[in-house]
């Protein structure tokens, strides 16, 4: 009698513990949505990646289609080389345009893929040729001020 009640409680405890772990994995973490079953690798070179992080999302038309796998600096070209893992379900044309974008004004940065019209598709290991670097706020502001400064005399 005593033992079965004890077993019941232990069973209950272990069960809700596992439920909590599953909750953390599925509902809180993104185990269900982010871990693609099979992926292929693409590379892209950027002049400036801004605040892009490893495991940051790769989106096309706003849908997450992959994750950033690795970022490293290429000492030969002085460019950042970003390796991405993309879901094998999604194929992109050769002339796809990769740009580093920001979600919201101060949100996280991600890679956006804008699809081109080429009929040939990118294969695993290929590099995306056309890229646009991250917008660096300081550059943007200084450019803006510079433009303003050059405009002002003309207006007078």
């Amino acid at each position, binding site marked *: 009698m005593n033992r079965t009640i004890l077993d019941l409680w232990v069973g209950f405890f272990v069960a809700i*513990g596992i439920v909590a772990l599953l909750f*953390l994995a599925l509902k809180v*973490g993104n185990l269900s949505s982010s871990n693609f079953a099979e992926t292929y690798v693409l590379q892209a070179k950027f002049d400036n990646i801004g605040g892009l992080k490893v495991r940051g999302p790769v989106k096309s038309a706003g849908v997450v289609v992959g994750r950033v796998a690795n970022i490293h600096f290429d000492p030969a070209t002085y460019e950042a080389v970003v390796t991405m893992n993309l879901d094998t379900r999604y194929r992109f044309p050769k002339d796809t345009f990769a740009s580093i974008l920001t979600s919201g004004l101060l949100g996280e940065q991600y890679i956006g893929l804008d699809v081109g019209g080429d009929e040939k598709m990118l294969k695993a290991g290929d590099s995306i040729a056309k890229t646009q670097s991250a917008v660096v706020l300081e550059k943007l502001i200084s450019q803006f001020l510079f433009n303003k400064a050059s405009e002002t005399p003309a207006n007078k």
Partner: protein
Amino acid sequence: MPKLRELLVALGSRVTDRIWRLGFAARFLCMILVYSGQTFLRPQLLFREIWFSGVLSLIIIMVSGLFVGLVLGLQGYDTLQRYGSSEALGVLVALSLVRELGPVVAGLLFASRAGSAVTAEIGLMKATEQLKAMDMMAVNPMARVVAPRFWGGVIAMPLLAALFSMMGVFGGYLIGVVFIGVDEGAFWSQMQSSVDFREDVLNGIIKSFVFGIAVSLIAVFEGYDSIPTAEGVSRAITRTVVTSALAILALDFVLTSFMFRSL
């Protein structure tokens, strides 16, 4: 001058005493591992200890988790809405719980609730000669008493930490979505897109597992090593709670610097 020498001698003997105890604790862990086989062959013994360390800590862990989540919800909302990003509340609550607060606070509560109880139990068994009696009955106290309590704690701790985090997220949800009115969809979807399973959740579980090993080892060791008197046992209980707290915080720093060092 002789005062200084006395001081140095006292300091030296304290340090050597600590090192001696550390060595003994390491040997003790090896002995537990050697005698663990019997523990897993008799799950009934293990179940009793999971009940003792886990089930009996359920209420305190779940209630504390809920309150920590509620506070995180309030504080987080207050700070985030200044920057107009109150939808990120879910991210804030979930990340702080899963990465840090869940394992650490659950570990501290576990040490004071279950760890102290284990130390007291083993210490009193030693003080009343129950361990010696068991040894004389050809039943090894390491295998029969110490190892099951150790493994019971090691198994219970990650589950308790997960429960703590879950209750905390629920508390944050309660404050953020139900009371304040943050958009429910944004709350969950931002959380899911920012909390990574391997990077955050799994590392949190690893942390709680390591804390479970540390606290359980400290608890059984202090109990087994206690001076078999009323005062000795009460000191051992105090040491369990203090040492566990220090060990958890120090290990947390070490583990965090390993796990989240990458960009």
